[in-house]
């Protein structure tokens, strides 16, 4: 049976097991050469990494373990082709395709049935697995830590390094455990859990740490909720976030295309079962949060740490720059603030369960007439499955646009965006200045809060709908 690393101290943490089992050799200066099991590229940066490798005459060491997808700038309007609204965007798609083919790696192309946002399709295809290391030149790669993997975002040069050598040179981060005890109240979601952590402990609170999410409120989440929780570990400045795998993890993965099969599967599950922090493990930092005390959250400023409970107000110590940008005042209540747009999508909240919960609240209702509302399924599979359940019809009848899958208006690449200066309630993960378009004011929140706000035309408390 797999030993999760030699010389592991007893007791040891999930993170120690993930780390130690991948150390190829120690490096002078205290770092380690760490084996990388999976690399995932996207078309925004994939071509430059692959081309740069090719130009240096360095082959991809094991192309079978490298994947690429078109998600970031691909058009999400119906009937799409390689053309995108981003000026020059088409070249990113065609060059990534050419470079992926030349390198012999698997590409999930524009109209592939398995296309979708990288962090949505990797689990759908069983590419991420418990106990594996997975990197992508994308900061939200931590999403995939939900499967008990060590998954994190890297730069393009590191992606080249991982592809050329099957390893990365790393310094071991410190360990943190964020424990959620108790149970979530109605209308409160994993998005609110992670926003609470960041609001209380700061956007740099997880800096230098690998963060394990644990506790009964985390175990109670389904896999999609766990992905939402881990997604924003990067907004907490953590190297990654992850959750010990359990029966739900195995059930989700069994039968997925790249997941182990037959006797490999049995052997894998047996070893994955040991992937948990041993009782009595000490962490460099430990945070405890009462899940029952969490309320729906909404951001008011331009960092995810600028977030409060939905019935809260802009704090008195709010920064001037953020207030000016968001056109809000100190002490102003968030609920009741008029919005121009609503967005449901992104690697944080675009999976089938997100769309099911949102559509259940929307069913038979109409959104406020002044609100432009868009729903972008996280993958082509999510879109098909949602359509099979009639979810698309509910969204459309309520007044939402229903799109092809991709990152879409989660971020502004120079193409499509919300109107300059407009106020958007969004299920995305970043409320930075101009993240969703020039001058766009983003309030991040759960799908439930976005739906409640779209219906009311103002930032609204979903609990009033329940």
């Amino acid at each position, binding site marked *: 049976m797999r030993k999760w690393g030699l010389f592991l101290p007893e007791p040891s943490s999930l993170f120690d097991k993930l780390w130690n089992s991948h150390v190829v050799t120690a490096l002078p200066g205290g770092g380690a050469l760490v084996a990388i099991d999976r690399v995932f590229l996207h078309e925004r940066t994939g071509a430059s990494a692959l081309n740069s490798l090719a130009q240096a005459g360095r082959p991809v060491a094991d192309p079978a373990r490298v994947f690429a997808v078109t998600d970031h700038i691909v058009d999400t309007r119906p009937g799409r082709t390689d053309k995108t609204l981003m000026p020059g965007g088409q070249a990113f798609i065609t060059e990534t395709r050419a470079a992926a083919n030349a390198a012999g790696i698997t590409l999930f192309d524009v109209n592939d049935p398995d296309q979708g946002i990288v962090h949505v399709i990797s689990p759908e295809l069983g590419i991420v697995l418990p106990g594996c290391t997975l990197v992508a030149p994308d900061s939200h790669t931590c999403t995939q830590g939900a499967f008990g993997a060590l998954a994190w975002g890297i730069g*393009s040069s590191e992606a080249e390094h991982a592809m050329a050598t099957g390893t990365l040179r790393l*310094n071991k981060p410190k360990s943190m455990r964020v424990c959620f005890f108790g149970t979530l109240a109605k209308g409160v979601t994993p998005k609110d859990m992670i926003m609470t952590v960041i609001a209380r402990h700061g956007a740099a609170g997880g800096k230098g740490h690998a963060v394990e999410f644990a506790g009964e409120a985390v175990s109670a989440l389904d896999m999609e909720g766990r992905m939402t929780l881990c997604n924003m570990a990067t907004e907490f400045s953590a190297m990654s976030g992850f959750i010990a795998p359990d029966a739900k993890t195995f059930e989700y993965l069994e039968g997925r295309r790249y997941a182990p099969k037959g006797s490999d599967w049995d052997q894998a599950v047996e070893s994955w079962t040991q992937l948990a922090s041993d009782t009595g493990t000490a962490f460099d930092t430990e945070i405890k949060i009462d899940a029952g005390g969490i309320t729906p959250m909404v951001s008011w400023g331009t960092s995810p740490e600028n977030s409060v409970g939905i019935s809260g107000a802009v704090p008195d110590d709010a920064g001037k720059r953020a207030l000016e940008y968001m056109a809000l005042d100190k002490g102003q209540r968030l609920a009741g603030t008029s919005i121009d747009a609503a967005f449901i999508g992104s690697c944080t909240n675009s999976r089938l369960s997100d769309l099911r919960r949102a559509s259940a609240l929307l069913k038979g209702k109409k959104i406020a007439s002044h609100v432009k509302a868009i729903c972008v399924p996280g993958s082509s599979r999510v879109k098909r499955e949602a359509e099979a359940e009639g979810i698309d019809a509910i969204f459309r009848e309520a007044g939402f646009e229903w799109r092809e899958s991709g990152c879409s208006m989660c971020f502004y690449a120079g193409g499509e965006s919300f109107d300059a200066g407009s106020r958007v309630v969004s299920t995305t993960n970043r409320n930075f200045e101009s993240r969703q378009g020039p001058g766009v004011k983003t309030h991040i929140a759960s799908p439930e809060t976005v739906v409640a706000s779209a219906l009311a035309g103002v930032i609204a408390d979903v609990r009033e709908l329940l």
Partner: protein
Amino acid sequence: MAKPLTTLTSLPMPLIRDNIDTDQIIPSREMKSTGKTGLTDGLFAGWRYTEIGGRKADLDFVLNDPHYTDSQIILGGTNFGCGSSREHAVWALVEYGFRAIIAPSFAPIFASNCVRNGILPAIIDADAIAIMEKADSPITIDLSTQKIGIDEDQSWTFPIDEEAKAMLIEGLDAIDLSLKMADDIATWQEADRAQRPWIYLGANQ
């Protein structure tokens, strides 16, 4: 391969704001090609020009101040380089001519991207940075002794891990370093394959 960096003397350009994210360093809309160059016009585009997407210089922004035209060093705020992992932010800084950033803290992916592209991310506390800003005179960075100084009386040391230091000083390429360990990697993979065969995917998945 990055240019080696041993010592550097330059007037530092102050841009002391906390949480400067990579979207501010180079907005996504300014990444117009798949290459690593042609990015200088996009550097700090959101702050540098009077209009989004425009090219008319906003003279209030420090990058447009002729006093700092030759600056190779930036004085920054905490959590410098947070946000998206896009390496274009660092490529744009390199292409523009910056060789060092001094800040109280850096986002980890950004700091690692800096080192790989020959930019020193030097961690110095905010009080010292304020002194350097106020002095508004050239400073000297000596990477071998890990010192930054305005003059003999006013200098500070900064931490940097051994490997990052060696890579910067010698302009080394990390991939070449690691490829020298190809035998270790192959041995490790062989042992791992026996234990986790499912990690090693075949061609017909």
